């Protein structure tokens, strides 16, 4: 699939986590498997914790260095997604109540713009919405 890129670093973190769950179960079973005055399964308990700690620590180093440190935000896309959404309708609830805010959101979904829907249905609230979105 030319051009396809996959989130392989996060996937490797997932894989490490799945293994840690198994090691945790191993520790629990070994702990309950002890009999009378001793638990003879301490070696498998330590082996499991040792593996889990190194897996997690290596996974976190990898995630920090190979993924988080390289992340760039697509600010325009973020803004576009927000502007096209009905997310800000919730901010109108204290001003006009839940039912009227829901009507604004429904209208926004039809016309593609929350700002336009507010102007049409709740012109008195338009100014407040402008204040809310200016920070966005």
């Amino acid at each position, binding site marked *: 699939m030319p051009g396809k*890129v*996959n*989130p*392989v*670093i*996060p*996937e490797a*973190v997932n894989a*490490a*986590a799945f293994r*840690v*769950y198994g*090691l*945790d179960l191993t*520790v629990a079973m*070994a*702990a309950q498997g*002890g009999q009378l*005055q*001793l*638990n*003879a*399964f*301490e*070696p498998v*308990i*330590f082996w499991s*914790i*040792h593996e*889990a*700690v*190194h897996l*997690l*620590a290596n996974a*976190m*180093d990898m*995630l*920090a260095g*190979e*993924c*988080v*440190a*390289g*992340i*760039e*935000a*697509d*600010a325009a896309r*973020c*803004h576009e*997604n*927000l502007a096209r*959404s*009905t*997310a*800000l309708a*919730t*901010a109108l609830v204290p001003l006009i109540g839940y039912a009227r805010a829901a009507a604004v959101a429904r209208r926004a979904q039809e016309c593609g713009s929350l700002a336009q829907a507010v102007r049409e249905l709740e012109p008195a609230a338009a100014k407040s919405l402008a204040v809310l979105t200016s*920070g*966005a």
Partner: protein
Amino acid sequence: MTEPKATRTERDPLGPVEVPADRLYGAQTERARRNFPLTGVTVGQMGELITALAQVKQAAARVNCRIGDLPEELCEAIATACDELIAGRHRDHFPVDVCQGGAGTSTNMNANEVIANRADELLGQPRGSGAVNANDHVNRNQSTNDAYATAVRLAVHALNGRLCAALEGLAAAMDERAGAFAGIAKLGRTQLQDAVPMTLGQEFAAFATTLREDVARAGETAKLMLEVNLGGTAIGTGIAASPGYREEICAELARVTGLPVVPAANLIEATWDMGAFVLYAGMLKRVAAKLSRSPTTCACCPAGPRAGSAKSACPRASRGPR
């Protein structure tokens, strides 16, 4: 001219065993090496455990010398051999498999034999001469059930340092990006549906916070590892330990490790109780669950790049199979 022998004969209560001449371990280690051909991963690869065993053996030698159970010359040789192990030497002389039967006896005897044979050398004696005996000198006043058990707890405490360093490192990386993304508004989502606005900076700062919470919780759990059963010998009653040994050994171990090691309130309970390990493994599961939670990982990458709601790019993480 004859070639130097490739093996030397070591003995244990079951009889003589040939071991490679260039190895520091003895008969019981060689038997265990043959008994457990399971993972190919050796206890020598678990450096935290070898260091902790050496610390326990060194503390025991010092107390044994003080109470008259060990001649000073032997104590110094044992202590020096332990220092070498703590410094990371001789790890390839620990060939016992990490998957083994017994409550750690094979690993404990591996440590006793390596230390005894190295101490022999330090005294100018050939390996296996018996000048320093693995059982009667290095393991004096101990049992696997208290010496190994104590070393395991110290090793988990050390491992927690590695875990917390990684948690702090990832939290710092999240915080750095949180600062860079402070002014970028985005859609917050619940149940994968558009919800209410937030900033990308807020999202990343929350990741950093949750990781730092785990540093604190892991530290609390790891503290439980400093309660040990050393001095209890086989089942916590202290059988076969000399008078005076039990009273001093934990304080000496604290001196050797620089950690506030204390004896458990009830050494009989502490010999079989694995509760602290269950808690710590649960703590690791908690870290894994947070780390694997999809926003922490998948939200780092665009779902797309055209489909889905791409909001950030992660070029270095996005290499597919080649």
